[in-house]
């Protein structure tokens, strides 16, 4: 499912696009949409990928989510970012289901007039997504299936925004 919102502000238009999907996404086509915001000189993107475990035994992972709540949580996070920084566009795409080695998991893209706002908003969204969006990873490895444990570092990452 995906949502689009358009707000028209005095100076720039602001759009939020959110999608939770099992299909892969295309960074280039998201970027092409982000760079259309003519008042925005800065585009920052983040992509999260399935990476090797240190012992090289990962086959794949499955992402479970809470349908409905995930989308709402992502919209709320995007709106929080929008209220903190002046942004032209916020795109968040999160995949669910089974993903293999090196597949794309998550995309966050920001268009803004200023690079500092674009960087901050993109990192803010990832930090909040990691702690607030109801998604869970299960790793399928040579020695069995394991739910990924939440990381203290992800929780600590929120501190700087408070």
């Amino acid at each position, binding site marked *: 499912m995906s949502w689009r919102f358009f707000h028209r502000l005095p100076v720039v238009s602001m759009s939020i696009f959110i999608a939770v999907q099992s299909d892969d996404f295309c960074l280039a086509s998201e970027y092409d949409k982000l760079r259309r915001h003519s008042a925005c000189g800065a585009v920052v993107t983040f992509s999260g990928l399935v990476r090797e475990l240190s012992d090289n035994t990962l086959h794949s992972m499955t992402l*479970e989510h809470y349908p*409905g709540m995930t989308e*709402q949580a992502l919209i709320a996070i995007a709106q929080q970012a929008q209220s903190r920084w002046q942004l032209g566009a916020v795109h968040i795409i*999160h995949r669910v289901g089974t993903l293999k080695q090196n597949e794309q998991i998550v995309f966050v893209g920001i268009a803004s007039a200023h690079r500092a706002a674009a960087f901050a908003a993109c990192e803010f969204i990832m930090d909040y997504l990691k702690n607030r*969006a109801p998604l*869970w990873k299960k790793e399928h490895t040579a020695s069995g299936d394991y*739910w990924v444990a939440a990381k203290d570092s992800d929780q600590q990452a929120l501190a700087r925004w408070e």
Partner: protein
Amino acid sequence: MIKILFFAALRERLDCEQYLLSCEGKMLQVADVLQQLQSRCHTWQQELSRSDLLCALNQQLVPLTASVQDGDELAFFPPVTGG
């Protein structure tokens, strides 16, 4: 009725995806619901007592002091690990 959902590792350990609880028209706190669920058996007692348990009421994260009523959707789950 209150619809209760469980996700991820918690869902697997409880061996339960969804549970319906009658609240008999009473106003309850999430903590009261949790206590009723914990009383079901030793496993539920243990799994639903974890200090890192998260709770969402009608798809919004809430503390255990939140009030629940007939028709609400309540969800319990472990710390999230998306992204």
